[in-house]
């Protein structure tokens, strides 16, 4: 099981690097806090109004912090040309992809878990009942974002203007994730009956499956000429 080993080592390396430098997660959290702050300036909200727009604000914050994390994920590989070493790994590239997806997913999910209480406190939400459903939505949407985001992070890191191109290429492609995540989050926060938004959960599952598989194969062509 060498490919499983590769996955494990990639995740290990990303975690140790992150633990020692704390660059990615701290910048993600800080950026998200600024987003929350700016949104709280631009909307003066009572609780009812907050419920309408909070899901959108939340996912805007999550998506942009996620893009910061995804961009970092491969741009750290550029120091000392480590990317070349990854490209020269004899194993199939899919293992590297899965390792990177796992690491990126973990970082993004961790940041979302850290930020969610902030939203609850700052926007006066009541969520105690629906917390497990919300976590499920976060989980599914983050899998989708990191699956396709990892592919494009690896792609854009090898071109000019990479910081600009990652969101330009990624955001149109994750439109379904954003719509589904926002609608499902809104439903859960409103305490709507599950029947009203379970379709969005199914859409997220479909998206996750499709893009994990497609990106897995495409990653080979990103890393390998």
């Amino acid at each position, binding site marked *: 099981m060498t490919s499983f080993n590769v996955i494990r080592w990639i995740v290990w390396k990303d975690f140790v690097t992150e633990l020692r430098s704390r660059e990615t997660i701290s910048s993600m959290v800080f950026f998200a806090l600024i987003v929350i702050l700016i949104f709280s300036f631009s909307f003066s909200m009572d609780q009812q109004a907050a419920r309408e727009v909070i899901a959108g604000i939340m996912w805007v914050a999550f998506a942009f912090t996620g893009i910061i994390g995804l961009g970092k994920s491969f741009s750290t590989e550029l120091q000392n040309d480590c990317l070349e070493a990854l490209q020269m790994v004899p194993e199939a590239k899919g293992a590297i992809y899965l390792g990177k997806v796992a690491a990126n997913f973990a970082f993004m999910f961790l940041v979302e878990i850290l930020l969610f209480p902030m939203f609850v406190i700052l926007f006066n939400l009541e969520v105690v009942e629906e917390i497990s459903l919300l976590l499920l939505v976060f989980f599914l949407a983050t899998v989708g974002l990191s699956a*396709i985001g990892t*592919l494009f992070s690896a*792609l854009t890191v*090898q*071109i*000019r*203007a990479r910081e600009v*191109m990652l969101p*330009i*290429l990624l*955001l*149109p*492609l994750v*439109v*379904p994730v954003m*719509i*589904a995540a926002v*609608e499902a989050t809104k439903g859960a926060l409103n305490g709507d009956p599950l029947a009203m938004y379970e*379709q969005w959960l199914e*859409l997220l599952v*479909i*998206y996750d499956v*499709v*893009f994990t598989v*497609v*990106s897995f194969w*495409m990653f080979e*062509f*990103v890393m390998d*000429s």
Partner: protein
Amino acid sequence: MTIHRVIRKVQRFEGWFGGGAVLCLVAGLYLGLIGSPPDYYQGEVVRIMYIHVPLAHTSLLGYTVLAVGSLWYLWKRDPIVDNMCQAVAALSAVFTALALGTGMIWGKPTWDTWWTWDARLTSFTVLLLILIGYLMLRTFVDDPEKEARYGAILAIVGFVDLPIIHFSVEWWRTLHQPQSISMRGVSISSGLLVPLLFMSVGMSLLFSYMLMVRTQLLYLDRLLHAKKGRLLSQFHLSKFDS
């Protein structure tokens, strides 16, 4: 290099495509603007359909060609297929933008708004954004081999994403009328259908013709630059040897 030969063969009929496009479009325009009656409900404005619907269809056709060509490129690595992909992306982007534009003009008198975040408008906008991203991506890579490869990856991922985007925005909100021509039958009366068919065929022919011209353009461009580059290197070498 079989595809090379096929392309060369098709290119020979380029003129037929162009001529056919002009004939069909002229017939379609005459029928659409003069020969066909107004709709019972929308009145004269329905004539915008004859230009809007073919543009939209053709841009989707273009995206399909792009995805198939990209797969082909990743498999065979034939540079002329990549030239075709680049050409079809640019043309699809233009056709999509024009479909959106004419759709907006149709929306004003019928829905009383230039723009609404309706399902099909949204998904076409996303399609346009993906195509523009594709074209931008290609300008940011120095190595033509990498440029082609990355472009192909984006095109394939985008193509797989297209139905999901379509469904997600469709459930999210929809206002656009359903398709008039579908597996369940045609709900356009013949007087209005004939010009639409003419315009559709004409627009597809026009698209194919433009695609051929543009592929040729990019191929010649590449050829010229390659030759020039080779001459440049030769010049350096000869200077060095003397």
